[in-house]
């Protein structure tokens, strides 16, 4: 994933050169970004914009940071009326923007050789790439080393427990008065399903897992039922906190690392965005004993080394934008190996832009080494469930697998039935 990039040249950059002629009128690019409360990411974007404006005097950028839900609502309204910003933030599960013709293909505008292949695939529709994949992530299982000791559990050298060992760990944590998982789903449609989805991926292997997500395989398949039955046992044993339904994503971070503290935190590797900031800004305490373990291998797992890798926050270009020249130049200026390195160094998170890990230095180097170790043998499945689901199926995923099932309010049969009713092809 972190391969060095070829020094690629893009023929279409000639277009950019032509556009930088003295006759080129000044343009003000409007840009909407998520991450208003994630300092590292926000800083990265602001610096790239500042660099771009410094190098391109004819282009100004009006950058706004907006919470994701509000940004999506505003974007969906404004693209229809021709009033969307020139560049805005999206994730690949919103590929419908491209399907409806609201996005400009970036082929020929952005140097595609500087993007990772998996990231390009995530944003490809009808053979064209529509997003600049700034953020990429793996779904990790963070844990508190001190609380693990307190619960009396030792991890094997592989850092991966089997089903029985993991169940035992959850029960020991509950017995010690420690909440096993710090998940909260109040403001997001997916974190409650992280653990279940990773277990299903390992149990089924990538092909059948994809079939499950696309409605080709039933949630009543015996292998799926096995995993759901096991997860239900963990839920009934008290794996999730009682405030699971009302905790927000940001609050669940705080719950994990500060108050009251939890043993594990199944979350994407963008954990760093909120946690690696000063404690007075909501970050994890200094010297917090953070560890990363492998997700357990369910009994009979077809692919215990499988793991979800996905593209997250990306920037797209509005097809009806009035400042496409400068917007294109801005996106292309962000898609460089140097900027990929800066992202990883500053945000400590994977990216869909190519990088050169040898040049990355950071005070969080030990964390980063551990993250790389956990991913060393990983076989990646590209995309989260919501990247494959749409409409009613995605809504059922959010309500059933993300909320009701992990909070213990549904039986395995009911949950599988609801998912099949909404998703089965």
């Amino acid at each position, binding site marked *: 994933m972190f391969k060095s990039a070829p020094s690629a040249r893009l023929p279409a950059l000639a277009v950019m050169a032509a556009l930088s002629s003295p006759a080129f009128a000044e343009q003000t690019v409007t840009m909407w970004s998520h991450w208003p409360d994630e300092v590292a990411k926000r800083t990265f974007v602001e610096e790239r914009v500042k660099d771009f404006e410094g190098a391109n005097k004819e282009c100004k950028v009006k950058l706004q940071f907006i919470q994701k839900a509000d940004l999506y609502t505003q974007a969906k309204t404004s693209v*229809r009326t021709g009033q969307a910003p020139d560049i805005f933030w999206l994730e690949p599960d919103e590929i419908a923007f491209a399907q409806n013709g609201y996005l400009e293909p970036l082929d020929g505008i952005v140097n595609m050789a500087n993007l990772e292949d998996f990231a390009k695939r995530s944003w490809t529709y009808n053979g064209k790439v529509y997003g600049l994949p700034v953020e990429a992530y793996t779904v990790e299982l963070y844990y508190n080393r001190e609380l693990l000791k307190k619960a009396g559990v030792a991890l094997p050298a592989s850092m991966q427990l089997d089903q029985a060992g993991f169940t035992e760990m959850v029960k020991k944590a509950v017995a010690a008065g420690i909440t096993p998982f710090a998940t909260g789903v109040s403001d997001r449609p997916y974190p409650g399903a992280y653990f279940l989805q990773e277990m299903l991926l390992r149990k089924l292997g990538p092909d059948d897992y994809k079939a499950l997500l696309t409605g080709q395989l039933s949630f009543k398949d015996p292998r799926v039922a096995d995993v759901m039955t096991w997860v239900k046992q963990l839920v009934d044993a008290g794996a999730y906190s*009682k405030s699971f339904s*009302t905790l927000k994503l940001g609050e669940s971070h705080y719950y994990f690392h500060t108050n009251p503290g939890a043993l594990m935190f199944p979350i994407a590797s963008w954990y760093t965005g909120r946690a690696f900031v000063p404690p007075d800004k909501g970050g994890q305490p200094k010297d917090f004993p953070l560890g990363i373990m492998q997700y357990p291998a369910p009994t009979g797992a077809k692919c215990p080394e499988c793991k979800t890798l996905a593209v997250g926050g990306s920037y797209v270009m509005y097809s009806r934008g009035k400042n496409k020249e400068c917007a294109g130049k801005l996106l292309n200026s962000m898609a460089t190996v140097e900027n990929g390195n800066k992202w990883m160094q500053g945000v400590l998170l994977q990216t869909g832009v190519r990088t050169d890990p040898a040049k990355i230095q950071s005070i969080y180097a030990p964390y980063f080494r551990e993250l790389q170790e956990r991913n060393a043998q990983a076989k990646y499945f590209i995309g989260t469930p919501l990247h494959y689901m749409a409409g009613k199926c995605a809504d059922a995923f959010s309500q059933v697998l993300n909320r009701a099932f992990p909070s213990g*309010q549904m039986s395995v049969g009911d949950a599988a039935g609801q998912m099949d009713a909404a998703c089965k092809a």
Partner: protein
Amino acid sequence: MKGVDTRTAAWPTLMVFLLPALAVYAAFTAYPVFRTFYNSFFNIADLDTARYVGLDHFRALAGDSTFRASVVNTMIWSFVAPIIDVGTGLLLALCLYAGVPFARFFRVAWFTPVLLSYVVVGIMWLWIYNYDWGVVNATLRATGLGALAHSWLGDTHTALAALMVTHAWKWAGFNMVVCLAAMHSLPSEVLEAAELDNCGWAAKLFHVVIPLLRPTLLNLYILAFIGKMKVFDLVFIMTDGGPLWATETVSTYVYKRAFNWNTFDLGYPSAIAVLWFLVVIAFVALLTWLFRQKDRLEF
């Protein structure tokens, strides 16, 4: 000026005064309503490329389980919550009318929630209902009733009721003020006659005061009913329709279908909005007709 009606004016003069208001009304009320009706017969991913689908959206609604859940939840809100709102408001008004100590303070304190925005109220009550440290569960634990501590908003059985309590807390003050004003305008001779007849406070309340307040209470009920049929803000902030659609209302579902689902069609949510618009009108007409059998409503 014999023979001249001073209330009449020439059409041009009338239009000068009416046009600005009519233009604003047409642009911001009439057009959106008509456009929503129009949209409901189309698949609209883009305003320029709408595809006519006739009554397909309305037929699809019949088989939409989420829509059904949202209708049931909204109906429960609309019929039950106004009783809680108006009942609480009436009780508070009676307290003030009876002259409880610190009545001035309580009048302000009880009315204050009306002035708060739904966002503030929603966040406050999210904290109040918090399982770990919320006031409700903390009180239960402190009084030895810890076994009753509950994830009030996270349980499908209690989430809707929890929201209705929050809504009643916000609006009880408004109902209180209206009831109190009505009480102060009750005919004093009737109340004095009841006292002369040695009527106890309970008998006076149930046989004199409440019957006299009946038109006011019915007005409040219908106003609350209309508001609840459109309830959105509090649900959106506190539960987002969950868990398991237990608090989904028609308004939140329309919003989700229009803006949250990763689909672009505006036609289907428009069809829901149109259908619900007609349902609300029908219910208001029905309630008005029912209540008019005995009382003249004033709204």
